[in-house]
């Protein structure tokens, strides 16, 4: 506590005990993480003056509590100590969040596409028609809430009558603001579920595809496919690991949206106590840039080659844990035969791998030897170049083989999503699954109302389902088949189950004919965005309604748009329960400002539609907002820890750490000690290097064989440098989650976009999405730092700003996904830099439905002033949209009745 108390002395920025902060007339608290769902995080204090947001700052946990009550943990190594910080550690865009509330692209009032006539027959074109072919091209006119909700209600009734309830696709999943009652995603299911159901877009893993579709077959379900149990690995790595190999992801970037910046302190602490950090990634990502003892720049999506060569070295030099392999794993003989070339005649030597992955032979050997001598954990933080490309299940499975060969579960040998899991447990997470309190809430009369909207993100529960990765295929072909829904919480066995869309007619199955989205980022956050744009124009989709705070991306393909509002405008509550910040909390999130324009919360918007269908009571269950907020507190049994009165007065509660948090065994330790007594949830109870289920279910799947392999190309993908396509598209695109966005969120905050890697200011005054390039690749193309460039392949082109530097290896360009699309030619040429518009159509592999949005081929060329002028002449409308360089496209860009 000593150091903690010292920090406490610096923690007095809340204006004293209960006084409002400088210049403010009120202060409210908001969890400003952007994970969404039930996963609140990053509590901040929002100071408000005269109804306007004055400032946003980190919550100091000790503002209204004596911090000794929190029972802070300590982790010690070599005389150095790590402790939680007495303030939250928000990302910059959490702190700049008022720019989102006041963004010039906020939707001010309900809108209707100017050439959409709801009285038009399906497929009708021209005056009085639906004109679905103009989605993404036509502008909008203002309508009233009454008119908007009447159109939506009538369309629901018409679609139900014509095709049945499952003809409505709900896109209500994914990340978003932390709001419990006013869920940012999925509120439409409160209505549609009570009207006979809907078709669910199942959000597939979009950050850890490889582990979900691969590692699960080796170590069982795990935690959404990652290693689990994962208790106490932060302490254990600190105490026992010599080296952490951070493979692919960026723990200095991706935690921001989900937990804030605590992971940064942990990585610095590991530096300080001498844990070697090796980063294997094509880009010098933000963690590698400051924490790496060694950066091994690898070509995107070639990690499997490097892994196989390491295995080759360990086998041939006899430097793996043979006893563990014999007692804890199944199928190593098959791995060995493949690696030594006994199966296919190709030994997976360092020389073989070097040609594939671009890492020198000598470095591969050195890494394999250094690793074998040390106690090593593999670290991640989702995303990155390893787990999101074509065939990503192969490197993900090989990673488990590597860990297994070095005694996974032994002290210091883990797979770690750094600080995302494995932190000390608090009095709620200790002794029970962190989902426990939510299960309690579910069991109350309020549970359905509160949790149903949030279900769409982690679970597959619709009567009819389409994986999010296959929406465009489902629309175009009218039918898709898939193995496993991709729902996060589904068991491994789900991947051996074949699903079809549509389901049989007698079960209510039908093609979809209407889409209701509160998740309008499919084109920029998922695979083959240009195909999706095209699919959404299909006359088969007779009606699209979008509800969203901002006029962006897929919203511009809707026929009717409802303006919803941000967390700053709603009265809510948020449990911030999961690992990764200094403390966990429950936060009473009072309304900071009045709703912008005519916006309503996502829940209120659904209620407005329900009212037109005489379904309001069914949606609300008669509960008031105040009752629902109180129900979260009661239902999650916070009354055991703090009185409602104290919580309501203080607006937050800090959950104390468990007194005996150190007692939980670290990671797979029990399996390591006693594999028979603590079997894994796999068919054999061991690490299934060879999967009997894969062998049986997919006997002829050469893309995901029973043991993990190097897949040069296959029926699904041809995205390697060895491809014929590489002659035209010789660069590999690396694409991670954005530093300055969470997926598509926050691309309108000028202050973060001013960072060096935020945006690149083009010669035309437009702020372009950065495209990282190595100076060698830039020079051969006549490209200079700051130039506008066209990144393209046969799937389309996006414009970016060249950031030419040494933070990327030659042969690779890096563009973060999620930039806000700004089509010059819809579905073909995007000025916003939405790189996923040209990512592959195919899923992870033939029978694995993840997205493959990193590690694909493209070419880059400089955009001259002449070329830009030519586009400007040919597509004048695209260049005439109202645009603010810092914020991007404005509301008026797409609205005919402009507001001043």
């Amino acid at each position, binding site marked *: 506590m000593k150091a903690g108390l010292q920090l406490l002395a610096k923690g007095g920025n809340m204006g004293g005990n209960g006084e409002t902060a400088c210049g403010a007339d009120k202060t409210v608290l908001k969890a400003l993480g952007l994970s969404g769902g039930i996963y609140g995080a990053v509590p901040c204090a929002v100071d408000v003056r005269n109804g306007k947001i004055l400032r*946003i700052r980190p919550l100091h946990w000790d503002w209204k509590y004596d911090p000794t009550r929190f029972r802070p943990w300590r982790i010690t190594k070599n005389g150095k100590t790590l402790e939680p910080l007495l303030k939250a550690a928000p990302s910059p865009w959490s702190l700049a969040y008022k720019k989102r509330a006041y963004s010039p692209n906020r939707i001010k009032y309900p809108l209707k596409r100017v050439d959409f006539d709801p009285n038009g027959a399906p497929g009708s074109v021209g005056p009085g028609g639906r004109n679905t072919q103009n989605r993404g091209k036509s502008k909008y006119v203002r309508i009233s809430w009454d008119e908007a909700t009447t159109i939506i209600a009538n369309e629901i009734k018409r679609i139900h009558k014509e095709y049945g309830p499952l003809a409505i696709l709900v896109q209500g999943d994914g990340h978003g603001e932390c709001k419990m009652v006013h869920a940012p995603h999925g509120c439409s299911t409160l209505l549609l579920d009570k009207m006979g159901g809907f078709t669910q877009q199942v959000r597939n893993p979009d950050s850890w595809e490889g582990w979900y579709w691969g590692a699960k077959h080796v170590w069982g379900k795990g935690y959404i496919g990652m290693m689990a149990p994962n208790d106490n690995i932060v302490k254990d790595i600190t105490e026992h690991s010599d080296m952490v190999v951070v493979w692919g992801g960026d723990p200095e970037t991706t935690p921001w949206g989900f937990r804030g910046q605590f992971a940064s302190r942990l990585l610095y602490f590991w530096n300080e106590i001498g844990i070697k950090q090796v980063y294997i990634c094509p880009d010098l990502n933000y963690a590698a840039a400051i924490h790496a003892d060694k950066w091994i720049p690898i070509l995107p999506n070639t990690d499997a080659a490097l892994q196989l060569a390491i295995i080759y070295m360990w086998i041939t030099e006899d430097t793996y844990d043979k006893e563990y392999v014999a007692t804890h794993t199944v199928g190593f003989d098959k791995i060995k035969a493949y690696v030594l070339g006994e199966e296919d005649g190709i030994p997976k030597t360092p020389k073989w791998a070097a040609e594939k992955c671009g890492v020198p032979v000598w470095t591969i050997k050195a890494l394999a030897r250094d690793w074998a*001598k040390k106690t090593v954990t593999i670290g991640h933080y989702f995303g990155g170049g390893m787990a999101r490309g074509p065939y990503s299940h192969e490197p993900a499975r090989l990673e488990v083989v590597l860990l297994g060969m070095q005694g996974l579960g032994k002290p210091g040998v883990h797979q770690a999503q750094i600080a995302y899991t494995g932190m000390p447990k608090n009095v709620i997470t200790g002794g029970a699954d962190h989902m426990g309190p939510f299960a309690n809430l579910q069991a109350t009369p309020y549970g359905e109302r509160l949790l149903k909207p949030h279900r769409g993100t982690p679970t597959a529960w619709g009567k009819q389902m389409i994986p999010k990765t296959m929406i465009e295929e489902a629309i175009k072909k009218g039918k898709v088949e898939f193995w496993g829904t991709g729902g996060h919480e589904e068991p491994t066995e789900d991947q051996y189950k074949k699903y079809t869309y549509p389901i049989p007619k007698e079960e209510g199955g039908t093609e979809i004919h209407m889409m209701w989205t509160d998740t309008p980022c499919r084109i920029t956050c998922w695979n083959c965005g240009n195909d999706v744009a095209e699919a959404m124009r299909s006359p088969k989709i007779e009606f699209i309604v979008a509800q969203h705070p901002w006029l962006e991306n897929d919203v511009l393909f809707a026929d009717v748009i409802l303006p919803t509002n941000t967390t700053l405008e709603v009265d809510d509550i948020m449990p911030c329960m999961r690992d990764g910040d200094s403390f966990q909390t429950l936060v009473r999130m009072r309304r900071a400002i009045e709703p912008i324009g005519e916006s309503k919360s996502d829940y209120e918007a659904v209620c407005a539609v329900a009212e037109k269908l005489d379904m309001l009571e069914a949606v609300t269950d008669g509960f008031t907002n105040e009752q629902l907020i109180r129900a979260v507190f009661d239902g999650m049994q916070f009354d055991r820890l703090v009185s409602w009165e104290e919580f309501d007065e203080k607006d937050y509660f800090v959950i104390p750490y468990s007194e005996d948090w150190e007692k939980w065994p670290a990671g797979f330790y029990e399996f390591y000690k006693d594999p028979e007594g603590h079997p894994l949830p796999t068919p054999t109870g061991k690490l299934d290097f060879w999967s009997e289920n894969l062998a049986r279910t997919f006997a002829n799947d050469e893309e995901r064989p029973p043991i993990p392999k190097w897949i040069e190309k296959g029926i699904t993908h041809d995205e390697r440098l060895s491809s014929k396509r590489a002659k035209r598209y010789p660069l590999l695109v690396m694409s991670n989650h954005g530093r300055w966005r969470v997926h598509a969120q926050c691309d309108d905050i000028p202050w973060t976009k001013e960072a060096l890697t935020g945006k690149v200011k083009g010669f035309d005054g437009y702020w372009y999405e950065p495209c990282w390039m190595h100076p060698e690749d830039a020079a051969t193309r006549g490209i200079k730092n700051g130039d506008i460039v066209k990144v393209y392949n046969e799937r389309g082109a996006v414009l970016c700003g060249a950031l030419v530097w040494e933070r990327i290896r030659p042969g690779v360009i890096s563009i973060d996904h999620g930039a806000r699309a700004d089509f010059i030619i819809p579905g073909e040429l995007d000025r916003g830099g939405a790189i996923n518009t040209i990512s592959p159509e195919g899923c992870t592999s033939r029978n694995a439905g993840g997205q493959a949005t990193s590690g694909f081929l493209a070419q880059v060329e400089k955009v001259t002033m002449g070329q830009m002028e030519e586009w400007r002449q040919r597509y004048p409308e695209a260049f005439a949209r109202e645009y603010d360089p810092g914020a991007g496209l404005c509301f008026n860009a797409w609205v005919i009745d402009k507001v001043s």
Partner: protein
Amino acid sequence: MGKKVFIIDVGKCNGCYCCQVVCKDEHVGNDWTPIAKPQPEVGQFWLMLTERVRGNVPKVKVSYRPHLCMHCDDAPCMAACKVEDAIYKREDGLVIIDPLKCTGCKACVDVCPYDAIYFNEDLNLAQKCTGCAHLLDDGWSEPRCADACPTLALRLYDEDDEEAKALIAKAQVWKPELKDQVKPRVYYLNIPKRFIAGTLYDPVEEEVIIGAKATLKASDGTVLTTETDSYGDFWFEGIEPGVYDLELSYGGKSKSFAGLDTREVEINLGDIPLT
């Protein structure tokens, strides 16, 4: 009130830009007269995070440094200002441009050796970091930038605080040559110097060479030695900018590099075959 100093440990700066962003959150659109009028929406940075990419693939590091008004005790801006008390030093050491007295002559903008003063054309005012004096006066212990720093790299101290004294003893000011002249009140810890690095390997065996001796000679005759590590890497980190000669030797073989010039940049010699 004790005199304030900023102490910034760039060795703990992760480059998140929270300091730069919250400076805008506090000052863009908010009027803190008499301490400051609003900062323009974009393009001006009372606190600017600077970045430097050091080295080249695969030996690259990034260093960040928050740059702000140094609140000099002998501030050139104060000397250059022609309006009495328009730029003044508070008892706590912070230098403030009074937005009510500034006439917009730009003399201070031109004279600041740290380029820390911006000119707001719309308001016809010179503007810069105030150390969030309006907040300190309201009882805050630190300005917004420090409050938002997730790693505690950027902090405001009382200069007679014992911890601060110990840190200042190890710290440096930006542009050390100006230290005695302008007496800056912003101190930096762990500002990186230069490095010379490379990887040594045996091209026949295709193996890295571990334990090779690397000897670096500076032009003043100083000699540094190190050995290649388990990746065949040698690193001379924290060396002064200058011109160096390097010799690498192992098992009777050696390789020399003369005139390695780190006055402007770091040097990565890449993967070096020892033949």
